[in-house]
């Protein structure tokens, strides 16, 4: 059964549409990275998911059922800004979680506390930003959740603990959990996730399996001795997303069958021809319409 399913979710604030007809499924034992620029609707999506904001339309189901109090026995949520009590200590938070959650695993919590080197007696008010995040993560993972929703789970952590968070996500997925997490760091998504969903202005602009996207999305670059010849058939090729031509050089952005397309271009007898792999960052920037400088000709990425 799908761990988490968002169907046609729309959230409007007055005339502003924060999330626009969003559908995303997260399967068990799978990690979906939610990417998007600031203000693209990621946090609003999380709020609607968790019942912290009421969706204007659409639905959210967790393991096939709508959100209900019992859901939180197996669903853990780490918000971008942790909701901890400033006047309580680290261990008081653990004690509160032990009482609140049926599945709370005290041994696991102690283990995680040690992993993040959190001082049990310290007041939350005296914790650093990274330690705040770490404590929220300890509380989330201590219930051994089957569904995890993490909003920027590594923010404020040093590179070593960022890696720890990724390991926790990977470990949870290997144990069968479905994970949805947002991050501004594409490198983190690239490691921990197997799928991505990209939001832009509240709309889903790209979704899919990361390795499949990387395998499909390429740039075919050709340089000719004279002006680039017309290529009307390639312009209408279903796998050619767009063509950029400038003088003697042409770039064809493909979303599959790049070797076939390169073959068609080769038939026009260019001076040189190359197929360049796109990184996830290139693919992401392309999807949100912020293409960086195109890679120079002939340079392998």
């Amino acid at each position, binding site marked *: 059964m799908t761990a988490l399913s968002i169907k046609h979710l729309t959230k409007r604030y007055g005339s502003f549409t924060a999330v626009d007809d969003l559908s995303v499924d997260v399967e068990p034992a799978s990690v979906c990275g939610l990417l998007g620029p600031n203000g693209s609707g990621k946090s609003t999506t999380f709020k609607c998911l968790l019942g912290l904001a009421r969706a204007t339309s659409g639905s959210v189901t967790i393991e096939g059922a709508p959100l209900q109090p019992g859901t939180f026995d197996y669903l853990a949520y780490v918000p971008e800004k942790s909701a901890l009590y400033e006047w309580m200590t680290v261990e008081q938070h653990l004690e509160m979680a032990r009482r609140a959650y049926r599945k709370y695993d005290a041994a696991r919590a102690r283990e995680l506390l040690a992993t993040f080197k959190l001082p049990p007696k310290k007041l939350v008010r005296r914790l650093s930003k990274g330690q705040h995040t770490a404590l929220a993560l300890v509380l989330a993972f201590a219930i051994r959740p089957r569904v995890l929703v993490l909003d920027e789970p590594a923010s404020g952590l040093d590179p070593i603990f960022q890696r720890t968070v990724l*390991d926790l996500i990977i470990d949870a997925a290997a144990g069968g959990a479905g994970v949805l997490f947002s991050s501004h760091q594409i490198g983190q998504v690239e490691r921990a996730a197997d799928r991505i969903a990209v939001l832009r202005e509240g709309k889903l602009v790209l979704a899919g399996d990361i390795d499949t996207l990387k395998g499909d999305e390429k740039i075919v670059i050709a340089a000719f001795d004279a002006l680039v010849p017309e290529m009307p058939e390639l312009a209408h090729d279903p796998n050619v997303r767009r063509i950029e031509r400038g003088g003697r050089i042409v770039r064809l952005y493909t979303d599959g069958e790049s070797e076939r397309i390169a073959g068609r271009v080769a038939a026009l007898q260019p001076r040189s021809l190359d197929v360049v792999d*796109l990184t996830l960052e290139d693919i992401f920037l392309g999807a949100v319409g912020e293409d960086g400088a195109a890679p120079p000709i002939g340079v392998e990425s």
Partner: protein
Amino acid sequence: MFRVDPRSGVPIYLQVIEQVKRAIALGTLAPGEQLPTVKSLALGLTVNPNTIARAYRDLEREHVIETSPGRGSFVPAGNAQTDSRRAAHDAAEKELADALRAARSFGLDRRTVTALIERALDHWFPHDEQERA
């Protein structure tokens, strides 16, 4: 034992497949030897477990490794010599293909590339190996 570069445009599962083949070709993974479990390799490389599982599935389909439920994945013990020769053959073929693709992208023609290959062969295989074979 393995290393992947998640930032590369090459899908991670393909990188894992190539590394396993290379390890078998080089003998770092010996016939009959067990591969790490999906979970331990995922944690070892900090990579999504499904990505590793996909690489293992493809390797199995190509008969490069064998998986038996509950026991894990192994390099086949069977015809060890042929298998490691085939793995070496595959790994070398891929490297050569990459080099030729680069040569094509530099705009070299077939004759020039053939001459380059001849020169490289003279350097790395100075004695005519055909006579020994």
